[in-house]
């Protein structure tokens, strides 16, 4: 699992651990990750360990690959960063970080890992994008753009890996009760828990589904958002 202490990442890791998968947690805060790995290994009686990995660092993906003792069967990428940004507070450094964290870093890492999985001839790569990425919009402009780019990347990766035995799953969560969501009050019927996402991800791995919306209600909403012509959408504040 790439993405350290991400709530969704850990929930998915636990879900797979429940099915007796060995778990590797890759992220930045190693002491915290060690504790999470220990918890997973005790709770589920599986081998679990943590690896230091900073996706933003040059060469980190190669180092990660070298550190893994075996090629994983499933790779989950839950790397992400969101900061509330609005028109008035434009900060070049901040926005660049948002773009790198949500698009550049995950894409480079997954691209490399996909190569390894293709060599092995099997495996699943799961990328956590967001409903936010289904269409470019003003709110959280750079986050939205990066997430949209990540959806396209995963699509491209799927195209590239077709026929190799490696599947690519794109996950589009709407609102999820995580650290990232913070104290924002969201409507209950639109909001999922990290465990809901984990369950949906696991199901998709079993069933072969490629595009996963959590909760499912976001699928028609997303379709509607994309269907609107630009001349209409540009006036909206969503």
């Amino acid at each position, binding site marked *: 699992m790439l993405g350290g202490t991400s709530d969704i990442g850990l929930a998915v890791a636990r879900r797979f651990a429940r099915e007796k998968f060995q778990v590797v947690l890759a992220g930045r805060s190693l002491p915290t990750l060690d*504790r999470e790995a220990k*918890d997973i290994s*005790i*709770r589920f*009686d599986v081998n679990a360990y943590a690896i230091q990995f900073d996706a933003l660092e040059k060469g980190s993906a190669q180092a990660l690959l070298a550190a893994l003792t075996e090629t994983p069967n499933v790779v989950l990428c839950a790397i992400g960063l969101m900061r509330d940004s609005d028109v008035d507070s434009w900060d070049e450094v901040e926005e660049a970080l948002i773009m790198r964290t949500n698009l550049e870093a995950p894409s480079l890492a997954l691209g490399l890992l996909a190569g390894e999985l293709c060599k092995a001839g099997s495996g699943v790569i799961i990328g956590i994008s967001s409903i936010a990425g289904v269409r470019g919009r003003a709110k959280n402009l750079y986050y939205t753009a990066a997430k949209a780019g990540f959806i396209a990347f995963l699509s491209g990766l799927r195209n590239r890996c077709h026929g190799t035995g490696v599947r690519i799953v794109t996950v589009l969560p709407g609102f999820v009760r995580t650290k990232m969501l913070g104290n924002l009050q969201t409507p209950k019927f639109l909001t999922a828990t990290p465990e809901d996402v984990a369950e949906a991800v696991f199901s998709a791995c079993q069933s072969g589904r490629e595009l996963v919306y959590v909760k499912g209600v976001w699928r028609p909403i997303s379709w509607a958002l994309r269907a609107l012509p630009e001349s209409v959408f540009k006036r909206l504040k969503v």
Partner: protein
Amino acid sequence: MLDGWGRYPSLTGDVAVPRHLDDATSVMQMQRPLIARGNGRSYGDSAVSPDLTLDMRSFNRFLDFDSARGRLTVEAGVLLADVVNVALRHGWFPPVTPGTQFVTIGGMVASNVHGKNHHLVGNFGDFIDWIDLIGPDGQVRRCSRTKNENLFNWTLGGMGLTGIITKVAFRLKSVETGWITQEVRKCSNLSDTMDEFEKCELAQYSVAWIDCLTSGPQEGRSLLMLGSHATLDQFAEQPLKDRYALNPRLRLNVPFDAPKLLLSRPPMRLFNSLYYRFHNTGASKSFTTWEDFFYPLDRLRNWNRLYGASGFVQVQFALPMVSARKGISAVLQIAKETQASPFLGVLKKFGPDNSLISFPMLGYTMAMDLPVRAQTFDFLARIESEIIDQGGRFYLTKDSWLSAKALRESDPRFLAFREYRQSSGMAGVFESKQSLRLGI
């Protein structure tokens, strides 16, 4: 909106959800009176603060498990249910367990819970090696029987008022299987029940379900349930498929199958329906699973909702050996007179207890629940004075209604507890609605 398991009283207040130690210590910097909260299974307002409540359920990692020696170290928010899940398949079980597995370990420490085996092994605290707490200064301290002993002893049963419990290291009990050999005896009245309690030395666990609605010669009739962990040799005659009873679908095929003592509806005459199931046999022996024996009420998720929106109160008191029989009889009488209609009275025997502030005392304990109605408060007021007169005391984990005066009179230990809290800077920092009400 926060309340206790009895859904009475309810309060609005702020809730913080720490996930890591830094979250918890930084909350302390806000300098607001607060209380830590586990899974909210205490019946009243001991885990509710009018200001800030810390929901510790995300502070729930398993830190270490020595499966050879049965030693576990956990963060305070770990649920007992998770402990059973982890430990039982390695042949370990909680040494002391309350009536539900959906409590946090931190909560078990704060209440210093007892089980159906107190007369033999004592409280959960007796099996704890050390506890880490965040104190009023925001610092983490480790306490045990040999280090910071005062803090350790006041924390066991201290209702979370000595600090935020973050980690607990404790010992588990070795078991050969997840099955319990259970025996149920019909007892014709309170005297008979208590005589039977005194006789059953061999059973590891004992509890009696008391009929609170009968009077006269049948007053306090009960079903006494005895249990012990089944050993492998008890299954010599047939292969044991599910050794630790972890798979609910596999059922043991034995001559005596355990009758299910489940609440299927909120009956006031519950006891009658249970009692007459056994009317053909004076006693019955069977095998039952750990889940059915220890946690029958957990089967009904959110069973507290059966009592309706107005909620219910539970009362649990302890009486010393010398006045137990008289006191319990008096309480049953008062229930009749006030028409408070408690049902499902639970009686357990207590052994000697040397703890500073925990609830048990050598004697007996009875727990009853009552729906919140007009008569309820009359009943509570009267048994309050009855229990105090008989030298007994009340379990704060079940309390939502006791007055500060009644606590002082029934349990003078709390005066020393308050002094300790004040001199250690804990007073005013760690407060629950209950602690404010009771003046501790």
